């Protein structure tokens, strides 16, 4: 026990000796948490629409007015040729093109049927897809109005109408920050934690001080615990800072209580730090350790379910997310913050994290060799 105390003392001194890194550990998450959540607005609004009107009729005018007054679309161009509109899309000045062919009005009235063309920029699938879905709904509405103008609808409407009512649970105001802020906090915590421990043991290897520890009777377990504890405490401080910012700046109060978050985070940090230590025991140089941990971080972060939905991934990628601690924490954050889940509800995730923590840390202890 005494050995552990001295080792811990050593580790803490080493951390506080380097103010540059301490500054980064605390400043970086704070700054990013203040700036980044504002960027995550995915709501499709202000879809830029270019209209090719070859008809120039009363109806085409009416339709365009109806579309622009819907609030979803922003008319960026009104041209006479499709080519001109296409150039707008090429320059990223338009997302969608609505082409109204010549004699649209005439055909609609005389032949009972007319065609409109929509072309969407589908590089970003969501925008092209959703934008054209909105547009089709508006055109359908317009169609109904035209019919009413021409025929006296009988009481019994021949046109089927299914009304869709939608409601949003857990976050009725659709405040995406409630979801993004805790999520980004998880990412920052993970990156800081894993990267710090990943280079820690390697640094001792590189500068040779590990030899000095290896010749002492310090036990392997003690050595690893002494490396773990200081960063675990730092991690909890970063988490607290982050939760404070979420509360003050974004008004986020976890419905399921802070206690649940802290319990989960305490275990989660052991997983992340253990992973870093494990990498550290394998790597020969700081550069290698950092590269490997960063490589894993990128996969964890981008496949964590915060940015893109896990359900949409191919099956093999969904299996990766089962091994991804970030996806568990993001899941838990979402449940605790918005759905008010308590410890009992997150039992499964918590259990998985305990297993991860035990496996990774024991592996790190076993893999740390006092002889090279």
């Amino acid at each position, binding site marked *: 026990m005494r050995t552990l105390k001295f080792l811990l003392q050593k580790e803490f001194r080493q951390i506080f000796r380097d103010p540059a890194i301490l500054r*980064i550990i605390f400043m970086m998450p704070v700054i990013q948490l203040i700036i*980044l959540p504002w960027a995550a607005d995915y*709501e499709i609004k202000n879809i830029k629409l270019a209209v090719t009107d070859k008809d120039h009729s009363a109806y085409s005018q009416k339709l365009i007015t109806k579309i622009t007054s819907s609030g979803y679309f922003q008319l960026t161009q009104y041209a006479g040729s499709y080519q001109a509109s296409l150039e707008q899309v090429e320059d990223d000045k338009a997302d969608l093109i609505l082409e109204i062919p010549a004699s649209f009005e005439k055909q609609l009235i005389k032949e009972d049927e007319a065609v409109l063309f929509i072309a969407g920029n*589908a590089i970003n699938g969501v925008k092209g897809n959703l934008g054209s879905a909105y547009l089709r709904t508006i055109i*359908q509405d317009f169609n109904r109005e035209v019919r009413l103008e021409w025929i006296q609808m009988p009481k019994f*409407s021949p046109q089927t109408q299914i009304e869709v*009512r939608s409601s949003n649970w857990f976050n009725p105001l659709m405040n*995406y920050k409630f979801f993004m802020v805790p999520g980004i906090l998880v*990412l920052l915590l993970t990156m800081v934690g894993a990267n710090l421990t990943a280079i820690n043991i390697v640094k001792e290897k590189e500068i040779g001080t590990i030899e000095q520890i290896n010749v002492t009777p310090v036990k392997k377990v003690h050595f690893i615990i002494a490396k773990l504890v200081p960063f675990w405490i730092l991690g909890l401080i970063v988490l607290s800072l982050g939760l404070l910012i979420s509360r003050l700046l974004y008004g986020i109060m976890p419905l399921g209580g802070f206690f649940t978050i802290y319990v989960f985070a305490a275990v989660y940090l052991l997983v992340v730090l253990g992973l870093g230590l494990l990498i550290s025991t394998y790597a020969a140089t700081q550069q290698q350790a950092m590269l490997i941990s960063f490589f894993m971080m990128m996969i964890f972060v981008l496949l964590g379910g915060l940015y893109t939905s896990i359900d949409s991934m191919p099956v093999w990628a969904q299996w990766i997310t089962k091994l991804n601690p970030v996806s568990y924490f993001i899941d838990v954050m979402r449940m605790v913050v918005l759905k008010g889940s308590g410890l009992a509800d997150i039992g499964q995730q918590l259990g998985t994290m305990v297993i991860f923590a035990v496996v990774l840390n024991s592996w790190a202890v076993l893999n740390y060799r006092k002889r090279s």
Partner: protein
Amino acid sequence: MITNNTSKHTKRSSTAGAGRRQFFSFVKKELLHIWRDKRTLFILLGMPVVQIVIFGFALTNEVKNSKIAVLDQSKDAATASLVAELNASRYFDVVDNLSSYKEIETAFQKGKIKMAVVLPSQFGEELKHSNKAAVQLIADASDPNVANTLTNYATAVVMDYQNRITNNQRLPYTIKVETRMLYNPQLKGAYNFVPGVMAMVLLLVCTMMTAITIVREKEMGTMEIMLVSPMKPQMVVIAKAVPYFLLSSINITSILLLSVFVLEVPINGSLLLLVAESLLFTLVSLSLGLLISSRAESQQVAMFISLVALFLPTVMLSGFMFPIENMPFPLRMVSNIVPAKWYYIIVRSVMIKGVGITAVWKETLILAGMLLFLLTLAIKRFKIRLQ
């Protein structure tokens, strides 16, 4: 200790050949350093390959195969075919049939489903007799982006279903709509994410490589030795960046090959232009690395700045994950200083839209300006620090 180059102007021109030889021997030394550490080299070349494949396949903005539950209180032919249609669409997987309203909440709580569709009793009857019916969609809005998208897709499916019924009876004055998807008719996520991942991987790997290599020499004290050599300090710095520029060229090649042959993202524009732009972007990243290394005193700090601090801003502000036009004004301004944003626009335009330099000259100029600025700043800082 560093040669005063103004007074030796004449001498320098006569020793230009020697200077070049010195420069190349420095480059060779750096190459040997890289070659010696095979494990790192393997990571540097393998990482972009693995990432482009994983992210190219796994990332998509689209919300598909979302798990939904159905509460069918009517259980007739009409609801059955509507549910079948939802299930058949690429967006939804009906995983649960609920029997009461109360079960919806538990299903959400367990986190299993993203949306619940409620079909009221007498759905089919009402549809038949009054031609009117209602559907209720309840989305789990704890992820508002997904909730929004799902609601819209579900509405579209219901509308399609409604149109199908209506079209059985021909109505007068019908407007038909034909929709085409430009550039990406199959709506593959890779078309959007490959350019984004290219920008991200190139930026981070290049920046980190140069940042670390110089700081490591500082940490080990070998930087002093290089600076007392007759080479000018600026040249020392540039000689360190050259091998990494070569490494990055290999990475660009492998990334492009994978995009085309594995991810099946076509290069619709000029390959030459795409490669030239990629090299320009690499140079920007390398210069950023040089700048970081001029400030950082330890490898740890250099790595933290070049990876941890740059990663999330690059992902979130370069426009491939979240649309920039939706961001508040100050953030849109901030996004302008993110080099990856400009490169992402260029790659998307050249690679997928197939446009030429006339469409991306502005972005190219901005990148070139960034390169000039970063490189000048990096070199200037080095001179100040080391004299």
